[in-house]
């Protein structure tokens, strides 16, 4: 980093961060769930609607040309941002979940009994359920990586069990866990997948917002992420795929401009990415995502990653001082993103959340769409604080203070001694 990271300058771009909750300032530590949006993104969307709105591809008038240029410009920007070699490799979906469903549907189309699909026990439901449904449809078998005690992918056990073998057709894992924060060795797993001729899918929903991304370095064949976690709008996600692979896949949803020729007796389909974009795409959302990518790029993804890394190290150290607090996943900020899940002894996550919320601190409680992982770790649910480019040290301090207070309140210590930290 050549220049100090000016988090206060960043925060000024996010009007919502100036909100107060009752007597307290808003402390937004739920960015792993959805990020806040800078004014630049909101303005880009408004300007699109108010000055350039039209449908794309089909409309050849002035507004149609402007809207199409804006939409395809967003595609080009996304391609560059993740290091794709062609913009035609970028498919716009409604969110990461649709992207993963698209992958599961089309990749599983030729599978049958005896074929295997491999995920991991630390996946988000959106990278489990689509594959379960695919296995139900095709008769293929779902298998999964376990995790080690410290919350890393258990590669040794996988090796012992022959998890990835000649029957494996698809491997799909998260780059960064939304619960544990773990950064998985994706390129290593991709090499294992490719060695047996399987397709490697990466759920990069938590990775792309936090780390500089290069699909080539990750070594994957398909990669999914979602707009709303990277300062962009809701209603848009991305599936990137190697062009050759995309070109070999059947269509997913039908309708609109994903076709070549439609006859009542049968239809032929457009080349990628259009084959996979049925109906009017998320046009204004692509414009917003483009603005978001420009926003984070102007700051620098490497600097955003470094900021998060520093802050995560600080948060991990401070949070472990809270009585009864147990961190799920790596307790040191090595190969680790900015999501920190934890339990507080004797207090249910719902109650932790509620108590913190009364002090303006927003975290998430529950199983964070990763119930199998919670089962595996033997906890029914957990709390999660998740950081982003606008998070400050002071916010971590407020979190820790709130957690101390919460622990005391529910254990009755407060009532007895009258004292909070």
């Amino acid at each position, binding site marked *: 980093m050549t220049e100090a990271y000016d988090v206060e300058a960043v925060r000024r771009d996010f009007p919502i961060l100036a909100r107060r909750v009752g007597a307290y300032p808003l402390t937004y530590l739920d960015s792993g769930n959805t990020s806040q949006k800078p004014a630049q993104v909101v303005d880009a969307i408004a300007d699109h609607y108010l000055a350039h709105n039209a449908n794309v591809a089909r409309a050849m008038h002035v507004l149609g040309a402007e809207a199409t240029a804006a939409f395809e410009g967003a595609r080009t920007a996304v391609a560059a941002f993740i290091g794709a070699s062609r913009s035609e490799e970028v498919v716009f979906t409604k969110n990461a979940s649709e992207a993963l469903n698209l992958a599961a549907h089309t990749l599983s189309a030729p599978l049958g009994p005896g074929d295997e699909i491999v995920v991991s026990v630390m996946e988000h439901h959106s990278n489990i359920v689509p594959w379960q449904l695919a296995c139900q449809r095709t008769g293929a078998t779902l298998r999964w990586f376990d995790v080690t005690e410290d919350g890393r992918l258990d590669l040794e056990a996988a090796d012992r069990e022959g998890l990835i073998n000649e029957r494996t057709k698809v491997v799909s894992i998260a780059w960064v866990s939304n619960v544990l924060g773990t950064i998985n060795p994706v390129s290593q797993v991709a090499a294992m997948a490719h060695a047996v001729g399987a397709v490697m899918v990466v759920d990069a929903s938590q990775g792309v917002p936090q780390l500089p991304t290069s699909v080539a370095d990750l070594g994957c064949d398909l990669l999914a992420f979602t707009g709303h976690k990277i300062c962009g709008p809701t209603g848009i996600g991305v599936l990137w795929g190697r062009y050759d692979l995309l070109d070999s896949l059947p269509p997913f949803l039908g309708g609109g401009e994903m076709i070549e020729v439609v006859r009542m007796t049968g239809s032929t389909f457009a080349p990628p990415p259009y084959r996979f974009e049925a109906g009017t795409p998320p046009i204004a959302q692509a414009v917003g995502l483009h603005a978001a990518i420009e926003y984070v790029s102007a700051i620098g993804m490497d600097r955003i990653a470094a900021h998060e890394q520093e802050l995560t190290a600080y948060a991990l150290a401070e949070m472990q001082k809270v009585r009864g607090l147990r961190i799920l996943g790596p307790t040191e900020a090595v190969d680790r993103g900015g999501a920190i899940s934890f339990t507080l002894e004797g*207090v*249910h996550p*719902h*109650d932790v959340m509620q108590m913190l919320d009364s002090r303006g601190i927003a975290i998430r*409680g529950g199983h964070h769409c990763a119930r199998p992982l919670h089962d595996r770790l033997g906890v*029914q649910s957990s709390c999660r604080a998740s950081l982003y480019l606008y998070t400050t040290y002071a916010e971590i301090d407020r979190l820790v203070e709130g957690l101390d207070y919460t622990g005391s309140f*529910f254990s*009755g210590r407060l009532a007895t001694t009258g004292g909070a930290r």
Partner: protein
Amino acid sequence: MSVEQLYQEIILDHYRVKRNAGLRDPYDIEVHHVNPSCGDELSLRVSVADGAISDVSYDAIGCSISQASTSVMSELVIGGTPQHALELYDGFQKMIQGQGKVSLNEETFGDAVAFEGVAQFPARVKCAMLGWAAVRDALLRVQASAKEEL
């Protein structure tokens, strides 16, 4: 509405010491309810004898509100008729969904009045209802199977 009003002492008390907790025999019906948004889970058994609820036992994982509410519910319905329990359900549900505009009769509802604060926290309404929804479900099933036997 402050959070301290939500977490009334009565609620914390039931949360710390749950009444009628643990699954017991004999029972007529066991139901399993979940609150998918937070993962709360509840297994609940009812036993009806001579027209009265002779026991309600349960095993629950959940937040203070859902656990305390189940505990309070069990105290209120055990010993009464199924019909009375269903009426209590209706009254409690009306209050909890009333956004603070509906209050409960303290004579009838006892400790359950402590949950009036919950009605101000829409996100917690499901928590407070979990045990009630389970007991209602169980009682309706008992009645249905009784009818079938006729």
